[in-house]
């Protein structure tokens, strides 16, 4: 069955078509949500919310782009909004901890490449991190990223380039050691 038929059947209220559409796209949606959220519970929440919204709004899908692209637009919106809320919540908690004089201990052992890279990716500005994760880790094209994030393809390329540069800069002190 082609995608257009599937969409028409979902619009007509066909439950098995809904499941087929979900099965066709859930892996990539969940993977993207997980890569961006870094937490299974949040990734599941975001994935569920993405499909709930998609089924509700399917009537507004005009077919200008592929359904997967449209779904990834919803996914990134849901994930980035959700992460902003979590961040806001953490900031409040951090304020409370600071008021209580609670501070985290410093890491004692020297972190390895993966840990350092993870920290460096986490520290990227949200826009850079999103593009880096989508392109370099999940394999989205710049065109797909541009549509999903509502930016020009050139902007996506520029942000990726800056993200990589920032990562190289953050990890420069380990460079010689790793290559050796």
């Amino acid at each position: 069955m082609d995608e257009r038929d599937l969409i028409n059947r979902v619009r007509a209220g066909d439950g098995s078509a809904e499941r087929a559409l979900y099965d066709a796209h859930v892996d990539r949606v969940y993977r993207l949500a997980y890569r961006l959220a870094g937490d299974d519970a949040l990734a599941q929440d975001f994935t569920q919310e993405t499909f709930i919204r998609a089924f509700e709004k399917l009537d507004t899908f005009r077919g200008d782009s592929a359904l997967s692209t449209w779904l990834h637009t919803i996914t990134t919106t849901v994930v980035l909004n959700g992460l902003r809320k979590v961040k806001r919540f953490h900031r409040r908690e951090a304020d409370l901890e600071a008021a209580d004089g609670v501070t985290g201990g410093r890491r004692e052992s020297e972190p390895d490449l993966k840990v350092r890279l993870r920290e460096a990716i986490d520290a990227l500005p949200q826009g850079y991190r999103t593009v880096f994760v989508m392109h370099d880790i999940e394999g989205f094209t710049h065109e797909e990223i541009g549509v999903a994030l509502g930016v020009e393809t050139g902007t996506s390329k520029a942000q990726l380039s800056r993200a990589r540069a920032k990562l190289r800069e953050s990890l420069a002190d380990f460079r010689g050691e790793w290559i050796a």
Partner: protein
Amino acid sequence: MMMDNDEAKFERLLQDAAKTYNVPRPTPREEMWARIKASRVRRPQPWLRWGLAAAAVLLVGIGIGRVTSNQSAGPGTAGATPDTTGSALVYRVAATQYLSRTETFLTGFRADLRAGRVDAFPGQARDLLATSRLLLDSPAADDPRMRALLEDLELVLVQISQMEAGRDRRNADLITQDMDQRNVLPKLRSAIPAGPVPVRTQGAT
């Protein structure tokens, strides 16, 4: 030449290492599908959702309006008329803020469990619980869907508010399981009107 090789090697190392960033576990298809189905069955159509949200705001507003107009009228002032235009905005802000803050709180609660940071939750849950109970006692709870949502939220917030700081990880896991089983977060999200939500970061009510 050596520099180019080193650069390429470094890039490859970075790319390989990047693949280990937030590696997803296998997609929990059936679990998520069950919750999506349950949520869609319970979730009212968009026009009905807007209607419910508007009704809830209106009803809460009427309740608050009565209190404020009685206070402002004072003893011996007869025939005072509530300022329905101004108070409507206050009611909308109050109700929307409550739902939005509770969603943010519960989302953060779930996210922070893994980090074992649960100490700040009981106090915040108590603040939100007070508001939940005010709403449950208001005409807003006359609507069965809104009442069911408020009762779900009350139950979750009671459990969180009773957690003992730093010693209740297992309890916290049970609370989140309960939230998942009853689809609390999807129901809460569906009750929040779309669009910008007025945000207030301090105070509970």
